[in-house]
């Protein structure tokens, strides 16, 4: 099970880039926390989320 933004996903693995695409999340507007650490942007493409991972994708929207 993979937990992303508090939602449990019953999959053994999922590519981060696939998840971002499916959820219309643009890499230039997010920060990704993977198991308590910030995931560097350069690793977005190669990262595969696996069973047990806890992920928070912070989506920045305009306004301030």
């Amino acid at each position, binding site marked *: 099970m993979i937990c992303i933004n508090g939602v449990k996903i019953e999959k053994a693995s999922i590519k981060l880039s696939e998840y971002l695409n499916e959820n219309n999340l643009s890499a230039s*507007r997010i*920060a990704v926390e993977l198991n308590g650490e*910030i995931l560097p*942007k350069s690793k977005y493409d190669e990262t595969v989320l696996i069973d047990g991972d806890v992920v928070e994708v912070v*989506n920045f*929207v*305009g306004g*301030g």
Partner: protein
Amino acid sequence: MKIKINGKKTETNQSTLFSAAAEFGCNKPNTVAIINGFQTSKDVDIKENDEIVLIEKGKMPDKDEFEAMLSARHTPKVYEAAKNSRVAVAGLGGLGSNIALMLARTGIGTLHLIDFDVVEPSNLNRQQYMIRHLGMNKTDALKEQIMQINPYVNVICDCKKVDDKNCAELFKNDEIVCEAFDNPEAKAMLVNNLLENKSDVFIVAASGMAGYEKSNSITTKKITDRFYVCGDGTNEAKQGRGLMSPRVTICAAHQANAVLRIILKEFDV
């Protein structure tokens, strides 16, 4: 016993607030009395190490007393921690201008203000500027106001646009950074750049505070040990949903309080 009156250590044999005030030369009717951060009109017993501030209304205090009076309503020990801290505010719009003034009132020792823009009329619906500031750099306009609120804050201004290349240099002396930009790519750039490259930084960012949706949908979330995000996470500024003073100010207050809690080593949310 030893007490502190108006920031000065004093020896007294008095046992109550009013008798100590009288000994200090303050006549009660025209004086505001604050003991350990709490303003009171009732006489109370005092004890060793109490911090008392007596303010005669309408009278400008001398310089020594002034700083004690500015911090009199703070919880004891908060002002010392605030005074010894430094906070950067990146972006001085609706979020940043409010955050900076709240932190100045809280007595933060050093505020590092960063913005490349000037004040223009459409800012006045939510940003802490006035008509007299139109055309001024936001850094200068905000510094002017801070000096009118708390002249003991050390204000460092950088009238610059923040990008991936100047981040490291601009924030090299900042351990706490408020992300207060308007543009979502700029927000993500600053947060990722600092968290990837600066291991000692705390960053308090914001996302989602436009419109007049429910106040209570704005929260503070802790993402990692060093990264907090305030806002509702979804309501962006767009056609038909503008940025309004109440919700932007609520979000700014979340950020300012998150900063204060970090300074006081209260890291939960």
